[in-house]
């Protein structure tokens, strides 16, 4: 396998060279503890302070409103549990959606076991929520609304600013998981009307193991990691200095390059999507055509299964991912696609291509050239496909349960 093409940037991104260079000193010479008052701690302390300023600049907030965490998942956990528990005496109702990342969904499920009530808003065929339904779901007991900014599977962008406005009208705290939006569309916490916002380092060309949570001044979060006085007593643990420096550098680069980057990604994504849909019959786009982050294409290839497509692509050096159960480690297909009303077969046949800064037109064209024969071969093996009529067949089968 000579060629290596990476179309899975929503899973993780390679570390940007400038990010790597910025981090190196904090693995070598500046190894001190930022909490120390002596010479060894002063450099790392300064680095963390500067990083906090840069991240705050990226989000348009004040540095004291930024909490560094270990990941997007931790940021989501701290936001949701932190607000839910701190507001418990005022109410126990949380509103979210059915298409959130597991870091949000499973945190909400945990809170249900702890006595909270959670409303999970559904989505339409385009993957969009209904703001009237959101309004109607708010009760006097509602303390938190948590709705993602951009969906990791389909790229669909929710109207976060409007959701934030609704939350403010009802005096409900609003958190948004912006892990997939960061670096792809502007993040301005003031314009977005949010009280809390999560980001993750490794989705924006910084390393794994670092994330951040914006918490608006005046919003109280109960810590989930108890420890020293770090992060103004909101998150214990000696700072991951190199990671924090890397995250800040990545934010700086994202802000600097976003305009150019967005145009580049959208052009490639549209070329990829149109190319595949034109050359392969029975392909369906998943997610709203326009209200999407620019790098993500989620396509269902009818009558074939996603993992088998991924294996074929992988043999050609092309990396992508799928909403098929077989790739999730569970037995259920993507909860996002199922919530959008896709049949299980279409969910299993989905492939997500998520592009990034280093992808080229030539790589996209290589995929467009290689994909049609793969799909054709897999369809020729599929009992759901009629070779003669070039369409699907109705197959009655003996059912066997998954679980």
């Amino acid at each position, binding site marked *: 396998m000579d060629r290596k093409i990476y179309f899975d940037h929503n899973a993780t991104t390679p570390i940007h060279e400038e990010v790597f260079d910025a981090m190196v000193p904090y693995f070598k010479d500046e190894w001190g503890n930022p909490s120390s008052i002596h010479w060894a701690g002063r450099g790392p302390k300064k680095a963390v302070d500067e990083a906090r300023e840069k991240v705050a600049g990226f989000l348009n907030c004040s540095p004291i409103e930024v909490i560094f965490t270990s990941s997007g998942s931790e940021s989501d956990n701290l936001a949701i549990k932190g607000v839910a528990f701190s507001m418990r005496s005022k109410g126990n109702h949380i509103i979210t959606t059915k298409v959130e990342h597991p870091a949000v969904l499973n945190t909400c499920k945990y809170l249900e076991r702890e006595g909270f009530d959670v409303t999970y808003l559904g989505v339409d065929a385009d993957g969009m929520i209904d703001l009237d339904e959101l309004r109607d779901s708010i009760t006097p007991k509602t303390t938190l609304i948590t709705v993602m900014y951009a969906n990791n599977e389909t790229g669909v962008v929710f109207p976060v600013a409007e959701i934030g406005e609704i939350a403010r009208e009802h005096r409900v705290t609003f958190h948004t998981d912006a892990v997939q939006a960061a670096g792809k569309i502007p993040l301005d916490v003031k314009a977005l009307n949010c009280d809390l916002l999560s980001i993750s380092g490794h989705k924006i060309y910084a390393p794994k193991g670092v994330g951040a949570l914006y918490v608006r001044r005046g919003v109280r979060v109960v810590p989930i990691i108890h420890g020293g006085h770090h992060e103004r007593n909101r998150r214990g643990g000696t700072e991951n200095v190199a990671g924090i420096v890397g995250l800040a550098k990545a934010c700086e680069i994202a802000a600097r390059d976003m305009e150019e980057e967005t145009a580049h990604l959208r052009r490639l994504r549209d070329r990829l999507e149109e190319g595949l849909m034109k050359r392969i019959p029975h392909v369906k786009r998943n997610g709203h055509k326009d209200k999407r982050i620019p790098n993500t294409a989620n396509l269902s290839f009818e009558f074939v299964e996603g993992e*088998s497509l991924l294996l074929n692509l992988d043999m050609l050096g092309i990396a992508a991912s799928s909403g098929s*159960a077989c790739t999730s480690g569970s037995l259920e297909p993507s909860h996002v696609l199922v919530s959008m009303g896709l049949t299980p077969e279409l969910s299993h046949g989905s492939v997500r291509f998520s592009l990034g800064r280093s992808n080229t037109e030539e790589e996209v064209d290589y995929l467009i050239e290689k994909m049609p024969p793969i799909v054709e071969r897999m369809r020729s093996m599929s*009992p759901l496909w009629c070779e003669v009529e070039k369409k699907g067949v109705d197959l009655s*089968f003996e059912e066997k349960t998954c679980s």
Partner: protein
Amino acid sequence: MYSEKVMDHFSNPRNVGEIENADGVGTVGNPACGDIMKLSIKVEGDVITDVKFKTFGCGAAIATSSMVTELVKGKPLDEAEKISNATVAEALDGLPPVKMHCSNLAADALHAAIEDYKKKKQGG
């Protein structure tokens, strides 16, 4: 994550297709799980002389389908009936644990095809 044998059978599946005027056809699976297998057999004097499959499913589903056709071709029915899903997985040098249940249906499809053959024979 997959053994070399699984990848071999996935990349070069044996006996793909459908037998015309098959003596027995077995279809098992569930689209919700993402796996459907259709296996057809030709039987002459209690021996499976030909077998073909069509599968909608993941790498494991396709590899197990392909493997089961290799295992039963030329075998008497009573021997073929003894082949279990575990036998198929073993012949492929094992499957990832999560696939053992959901995608390992090839022997079930074989048994369904044999049953169908027996039913047809009784009826005819």
